[in-house]
């Protein structure tokens, strides 16, 4: 009994410690500017206001950055999931020389810190004439999201019994047909985890966006908001908090939609023995 209470207390302490900055962010974004620096600080705003949100949407480039981020993250996710799915299928189902070493080589690239790769990547993109575009970021993010995605999907793929695919082939499906009808539905939880991982990664990425893109038309939210609201002389706290809240909303929505898929059964019962 005591132990349970102690455990609950412990768990809730951690939850609060993690959640508090988020609460504070939301509350700050809803306070008028003059209330921010008051001593002692107010916990709940004395006056509730959404003027910061309105300012961001109407008189800054926030929406452009937001659109860029959506395009960037969605494209990266699609590209990474598509390539990783096909790659994982190949690594698991086909037997060829160097298959295992290939898989490890892929993981090895993931172990390199991205700071090391950023300059060579930048130079390559400049030479390709792709610098300063959303596409350059899609390529950059793909290079570091893909290895991990490949490994994640590979383990999911290995969990799908080969008999399922064999059965589909005997039933008259082509390899592609069997992949679409049988493998893909089984792989769905894996694909969703991978998509989520990639989306969050590209949505929050800062360093590459800072180095590779410096035109407002291509900036994603992370660098855009920093650039707009944080300068050496001044930080627009209210606007920054409002922007942060709005940046978090898409992730929360995506999670809310997909988490039920993540926890749903992995097709148990299809294959016995």
């Amino acid at each position, binding site marked *: 009994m005591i132990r349970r209470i102690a455990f609950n207390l412990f768990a809730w302490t951690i939850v609060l410690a993690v959640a508090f900055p988020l609460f504070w962010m939301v509350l700050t974004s809803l306070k008028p500017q003059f209330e921010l620096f008051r001593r002692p600080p107010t916990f709940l705003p004395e006056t509730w206001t959404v003027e910061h949100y309105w300012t961001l949407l109407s008189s800054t480039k926030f929406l452009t950055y937001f659109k860029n981020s959506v395009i960037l993250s969605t494209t990266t996710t699609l590209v990474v999931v598509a390539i990783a799915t096909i790659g994982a299928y190949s690594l698991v189902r086909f037997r060829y020389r160097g298959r295992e070493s290939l898989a490890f080589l892929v993981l090895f690239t993931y172990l390199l810190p991205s700071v090391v790769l950023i300059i060579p990547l930048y130079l390559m993109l400049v030479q390709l004439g792709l610098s300063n575009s959303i596409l350059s970021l899609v390529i950059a993010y793909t290079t570091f999201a893909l290895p991990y995605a490949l490994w994640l999907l590979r383990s999911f793929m290995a969990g799908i019994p080969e008999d399922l695919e064999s*059965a589909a082939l005997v039933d008259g499906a082509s390899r592609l047909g069997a992949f679409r009808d049988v493998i893909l539905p089984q792989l769905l939880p894996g694909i969703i985890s991978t998509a989520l991982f990639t989306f969050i990664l590209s949505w929050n990425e800062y360093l590459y966006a800072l180095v590779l893109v410096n035109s407002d038309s291509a900036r994603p939210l992370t660098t855009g908001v920093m650039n707009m609201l944080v300068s050496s002389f001044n930080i627009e706290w209210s606007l920054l908090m409002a922007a942060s809240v709005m940046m978090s909303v898409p992730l929360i929505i995506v999670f809310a939609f997909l988490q039920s898929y993540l926890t749903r*059964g992995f097709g148990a*019962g299809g294959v016995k*023995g």
Partner: protein
Amino acid sequence: MAEVVFKDIVKSFGSFTAVHGLNLTIAEGEFVSLLGPSGCGKTTTLRMLAGLDFPTSGSISIGNRVVNDVAPGERDIAMVFQSYALYPHMTVYDNIAYPLKKRGVRKADRAPMVQKTADLLQLTELLRRKPRQLSGGQQQRVALGRALVRDPKVFLLDEPLSNLDAKLRGYMRVELVELHRRLGRTMVYVTHDQLEAMTMSDRIAVMEGGKLQQFAPPNEVYREPANRFVAGFIGTPAMNLIDGTLANEAGAWRFASPGITLTCPPLTDDAVSGPACLGVRPEDVLLGEGPIRGQVQVVEQTGHENIVVVKIADGIRLTGRAGADHVWRPGETIQCAVDVSKAHVFAAGPSGQRLNRPLTKDQPRLAKEGA
């Protein structure tokens, strides 16, 4: 024509050879079992027939057409997997309808076909369920339904009953035989269970270590096992296999081992003096009287009979079957005999050839003999 022919089939996985030069001709409409212990290459053989694995060398034909380069879906076969391999995300209906869909049967035409199959297998109530909501037996029937819904040339079944409990297995054996009789299709049935093979097959292909040991009807496999492996593998309780020596005495072959000496049944010209093995089925051991003296070690009562294990010398045991009415006691001294007319003699070694001359109908029965 749906004759299935394996010609000199070899299958290697890297340096390991799973199937060694298999030659097998399965007649149209025949029910053939591939029988052998786990790992002997049965599944590999079946997968090659299905087109899921490719032979390293040799050719496979179905109905006079070499199918080595034909995709599984175009071989006009249906297969039931040991794991059932039901599509987990599809309903029972969609599982059964899938082969039809993939072969371009129109949606409206599929429904009555699925319905008919479901009726046949008593699955009508379950058509809306997902595989994970079914019991093992029901899943097995769905897997069967997916194979039966079309009318393929050849049915391939890989240990379809091995995941069922004993009672259901017995029931499904009868059902499958009945199904085969009704459909008249060629069926290739993989099993490690000799009872299944014996009760269901027209012919049994006994395999061991990737090699075909014997291909014959069940009673022939039982009564004239081609070699020592087949003799020991088929039959429960297993055949008594006693190592000893063979010697030619004035034109007649005599077998001798500690505890037993007897005159052999007629042997072929391959018989040579030296080490050999005597095989006697438990039902051909006569308990109670005879020249062989031993001590009862174990008595297993099955209800309708007693299985009696008799020690006749150090390390040599003879298992016999006796009626249930006489109970032998462990420790008791017992006399017994061997029905020499039904005894087998095998060359030395774990897969020594059978040396008996083939049975002829009017072959004179020899008298009981022993000691």
